């Protein structure tokens, strides 16, 4: 999104953002997303994370992290982050007042046909997110976006995936999508293998005795396995590895 006092005539991709907001820390290292690409010295990076994120910073950027998923769960009961991320962006910019934020959350969610109580929960979420960060205004900064061809450079130390290796999406750590984690209770499990069959992601394999083993690097936390298990042997816990 572009913000300016003057009319905005520029369109298309933003190659040199002043603010970058990242919904999940794993995206920082994903070579097809590369959210840090093009960040200039002095720009601002927000990461939704409960832990301080370790990044090899190419530039001197202000880095802030907060666990807004936790706030979304508290207010809405689900990991729906749009109002939360919007609130963080409004506050960081130092340009948008709390009232304008609340008005637009109400207006936009009403347009989507959400029930009044759900809109109110989103407003409360937005308010808490708004107050949870400080403004880092770039106003007055002599900020000139460059219009050069952007250098394509893979972030992180993992390099590019080998194109000829089939099944290389396994490198993409979709485990970071999880809000709740499935955990097999071996005392209840009868090794029937049903969870293995219904996992849409091929994230469950069976060990030699037929007990399920979950690949937490890639498990998206859809919890189909939890629902399909006839013994209710798959418990769920709030995700801690990635959040």
């Amino acid at each position: 999104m572009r913000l300016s006092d003057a009319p905005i005539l520029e369109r298309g991709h933003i190659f040199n953002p002043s603010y970058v907001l990242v919904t999940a820390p794993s995206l920082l290292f994903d070579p097809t997303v590369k959210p840090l690409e093009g960040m200039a010295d002095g720009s601002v990076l927000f990461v939704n994370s409960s832990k301080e994120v370790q990044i090899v910073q190419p530039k001197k950027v202000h880095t802030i992290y907060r666990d807004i998923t936790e706030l979304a769960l508290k207010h809405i009961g689900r990991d729906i982050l749009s109002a939360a991320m919007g609130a963080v962006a409004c506050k960081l910019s130092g340009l948008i007042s709390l009232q304008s934020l609340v008005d637009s959350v109400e207006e936009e969610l009403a347009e989507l046909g959400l029930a009044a109580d759900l809109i109110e929960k989103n407003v409360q979420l937005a308010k808490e997110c708004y107050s949870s960060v400080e403004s880092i205004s770039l106003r007055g900064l002599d900020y000139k976006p460059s219009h050069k061809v952007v250098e394509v450079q893979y972030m992180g130390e993992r390099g590019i995936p080998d194109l000829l290796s089939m099944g290389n999406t396994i490198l993409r750590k979709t485990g970071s999508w999880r809000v709740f984690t499935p955990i097999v209770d071996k005392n209840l499990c009868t090794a029937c293998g049903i969870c293995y069959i219904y996992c849409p992601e091929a994230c469950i394999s069976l060990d030699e005795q037929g007990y399920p083993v979950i690949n937490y690097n890639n498990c998206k936390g859809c919890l189909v396995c939890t629902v399909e298990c006839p013994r209710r042997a798959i418990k769920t816990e709030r995700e801690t590895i990635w959040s």
Partner: protein
Amino acid sequence: MSITKYRTLKDVPKEEFLVAGTPLCAGCGALLVIRLFHKALGGNVVWVNAAGCVTLMATFPYTPLRSSWFYTAMPSAPAGAQGIRDALDILIKKGKLDPAENLKVVVITGDGAASDIGLQSASGAIHRGLDFFYLCVDNEAYGNTGFQASSLSPIGSGTATTKPTHLYPAGNVLPKKDLFEIWRSHRPPYVATISPSHVVDMLRKVEKALSFKGPKLFLALCPCPTGWGIEPSESVQLARLAVETGIWPLKEAVYGEVTHTHIPSKRRPVEDYLKVQRRFAHLFKPIKNEAVIAEIQKQVDEYWSKVER
């Protein structure tokens, strides 16, 4: 039923041809169908795909597949399949390709591609007797572009283009095209409906189809948590409910001869299926639209009244 190697869920092949890490939504029914379908097909496959959610599975430089992938324009996946089939046949005939390396050509498209823009191309390929598989992953709308109505969207469903309004309180007013019957009218060797909830049924059908040369077509109901407004964890349950309510009949047609492979002994009311999905929420709130729900029930009842037991 002829001899099958799939008797229980224990017989589901263990080899995976579709690995984790795709960008498809958590709980995507289409992904589960493709994973299971692939197990029954085996690994020597080239998928021919028309634009849709499934396309995002294999976005450069990543692929979850241990098989091959070919991407075509939205209307022309079956035409692409013809080209690949012909090329493989010619190479084998000329001795340039070891027949052991032959591939099964499998078209995979969404319902939008299958029932709207790609219908003529599929009809042509079936008419020409092309030796291929067609798997339509039916999430009942144009999922990848934001869930607009396709001609496989059911009556009463709310989509981005059939939002319930005061003029159209039921949302979508057009009936779901009967793609099974459209395909069947060409009298291909094999047509079947499948559901990710009924896995043995699915694998047996693929097994049976493998014995035929010519067009083999599959229509799979694929719950879409994002578009249907259900929890990702509920997607297999929803597919099962569709079968148990009779909304999604499981059947096959061999050279046009129809058999139902699963007849629910006591059908659950369609309401059980409708009321748990956001795309049908307007039929229940703020006031219950009894007329539309009764109409949906009536259509299901009429369908099953014609099915011989």
